[in-house]
């Protein structure tokens, strides 16, 4: 039982390790720096969005619109390039993402719309705006050389994108575990009434969580547009499922109150490694989804059935 409980506790690490092991045995040269670098870069987009989603899920919220926000931010960043220049346009793209998050936050905090419903609606709306702005056509950027520069590999493994992802995860880890605001986030997600009665403002916390998630979806969208030199209204249409899967595989509870940044890192890497390995083996895409789905179910079932120690353990010792 304790062995199993320990395995469950570090399940992300175990699953990631197993994935890497199987991949290295079946895919020749999988553990080479260049393959890992590629996998990390491919995971970075999901990862940056998942970083924001981790915060939202801990706060017992969810944002289904991140894929649409991703597209909208990218389009903003590309379409404004001729008018205000590349970097101001990129900033505008990120701000567009934050604004989208603010709209979601407003709906769910001020107008008390359930986050699932509110962001389902904005998912459709943001996506439609993206099509409308672009006439449903991809928009090219002004500087094609920039995408080459952005794909440059540093320290033999990091691209700008993957470095940003890992940096964001580490910052989030410190914020969640060590800062007062981070601990308050768990309180809000676990028991909002208790948090409020203790003088914490749950509404403000939740609103800022939405803005944060929107801004990070914006960052990912802008990076995507700059590296492809294209803003497209269909970008990120299927991202949301993978993002939520990565966060949940990482041990963050969809019911709020529990989760970790390093877990999300593990979840993202697992999914990235799986995808990369299976692509190298020419496994069809739909089989890849089946495997990801099964791993997700396995982890959640383990989480629900194996508890680290009986609930009343401490109680029995104290009052006997």
């Amino acid at each position, binding site marked *: 039982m304790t062995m199993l409980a320990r395995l469950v506790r570090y399940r992300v690490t175990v699953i990631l390790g197993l994935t890497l092991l199987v991949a290295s045995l079946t895919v020749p040269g999988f553990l080479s720096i260049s393959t890992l670098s590629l996998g990390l870069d491919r995971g970075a987009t999901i990862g940056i969005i998942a970083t924001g989603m981790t915060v939202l899920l801990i706060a017992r919220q969810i944002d289904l619109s991140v894929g649409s926000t991703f597209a909208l931010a990218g389009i903003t960043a590309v379409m404004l390039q001729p008018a205000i220049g590349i970097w101001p346009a990129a900033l505008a793209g990120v701000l567009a993402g934050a604004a989208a998050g603010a709209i979601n936050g407003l709906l769910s905090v001020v107008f008390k719309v359930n986050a699932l419903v509110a962001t389902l609606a904005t998912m459709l709306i943001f996506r439609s705006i993206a099509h409308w702005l672009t006439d449903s056509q991809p928009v090219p950027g002004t500087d094609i050389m920039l995408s080459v520069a952005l794909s440059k590999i540093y320290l033999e493994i990091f691209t700008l994108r993957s470095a940003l992802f890992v940096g964001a995860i580490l910052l989030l880890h*410190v914020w969640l575990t*060590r*800062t*007062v605001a*981070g*601990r*308050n986030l*768990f*309180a809000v*997600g*676990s*028991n909002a*009434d*208790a*948090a*409020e*009665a*203790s*003088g*914490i*403002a749950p509404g403000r916390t939740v609103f800022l969580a939405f803005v944060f998630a929107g801004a990070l979806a914006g960052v990912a969208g802008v990076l995507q547009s700059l590296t492809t030199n294209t803003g497209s209204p269909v970008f990120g249409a299927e991202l949301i499922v993978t993002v939520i899967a990565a966060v949940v595989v990482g041990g963050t509870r969809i019911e709020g*109150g*529990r989760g970790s940044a390093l877990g999300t890192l593990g979840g993202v890497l697992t999914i990235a490694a799986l995808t990369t390995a299976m692509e190298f083996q020419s496994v069809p895409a739909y089989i890849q989804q089946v495997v990801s789905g099964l791993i997700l179910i396995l982890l959640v079932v383990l989480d629900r059935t194996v508890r680290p*120690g*009986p*609930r*009343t*353990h*401490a*109680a*029995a*010792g*104290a*009052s*006997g």
Partner: protein
Amino acid sequence: MSAAATALRMRGISKTFPGVKALSSVNLTVEFGRVHAIVGENGAGKSTLMKVLSGTYLPTTGTTEIAGVEVRMRKPADAQRLGIRMVHQELNLVPDLSVAENVYLGRMPRRWGLADKAAMLRETAVILDELGATIDPKARLGDLSISQQQLVEIAKAYAAAPRIIVLDEPTSSLSEHETAALFRILRKMKQQGIAIIYISHRVKEVLEIADDVTILRDGSMIDTRPADGITVAEMIRLMVGREVTNVFPKTPSEIGAPVLKVVALGDSYNFRNVNFEVRKGEILGLTGLVGAGRTELAKAVFGLARATEGRIEVDGKPVVIGSPAAAVRAGIAYVPEDRKDEGIVPSLSVRENISLPVLRKLSRFGRVSMTADRRLADKYTKEFSIMPPDPERRIGLLSGGNQQKAVLSKWLSADPSVLLLDEPTRGVDVGAKAEIHRIIGELVAGGMAVVMISSELPEVLGVCDRVIVMRDGHASAPVDRAALSEEKIMALATGEEAA
């Protein structure tokens, strides 16, 4: 007396909700360094008054002065800044954070911009030690028992070094030992000059700890007087507005053949080798200190937890109970201790809650008969005088006593042969308590067998035919009503021989 010596002065406080006047012109004066009890039945306005004091409600009229300064509190944070701390009856803690983080929730100490975990753990250990609680500050709060969580809630309020501390039914989940420890700490806080507002239904406790008593009834203040020279009977009379002669009346009933028999039952952790039988028409009391294994035993009998050894017989036939559904089929019903989490579905109406276990009975060809459903709810609402008498009201909006009556009637409609009650009157006021006892009395008179878990000794002594006492997972032999006394039960519960 100078104004500064008065901790709290509320004048003419009224609070009106659409259609209801919850408080009408209440005055309350509380001095520093005194324990001021507020008593009253459920619905008397205690909670509303305390919500005004904690900044949750803005009063419709009236003024509040803290230490002589008039204040306006719009949210809980305002009240906290003024040094007012609440210990809620419904626990207000965060299950997913550690004990230490809960104690410091909303005011965590910082060091170089980060939460100072070391300081929190250190200080929490000191405070818990002062409170006489053996709880690990690092433990996840959700893993603690309810009584331990209650102590954490008290530690949380105390740690904030408040000027005024409000305790709402603080002992409802504490054992007698823990209550004594709480009273020691309250006396200490009193000496530190803290003003203590103590809300309780337990009249005896109030007289033991309080210096002053304010009685509320129907949203109005009836009287404030020193606790000296007021008797239990007088206080109850003021609370209910009538004389209540016997707080725990016993309805006589005819005792028949054994219905439920538990043989050598154990879960190899919380309780071991438990034997007892309950007979038709009998109330069997199950008492002991909190954490002695009573609830776990009841849950195992009802199939909510797994027993690893022993067997259960109903009407002389062995039954296998692997789930609550199997227990209900075997004729066993269970009313849990944690009403909010396990007893009711708060978002459903009283009617829907009552008919929940019997929907199949009420339906024909898969369609629930609304007429039968309504008739059932109407019947129980009237019979148990559930207030307000509106079966369509959301049950979450009812007071604790009325919720409990609805939970009881829910199981009555299922017509079980054995009813397991876990702390059926916890956090319920005197009037509703008597009514719940009357209902239980009627049930056994009708031939049901009842197992009642209770920590309240007067209740156990007053209501039960036989009592078994649990200690560290072991059950004593049943003690007959005639041989019972508080001393005898405490001796069995603590393992100390009575002198």
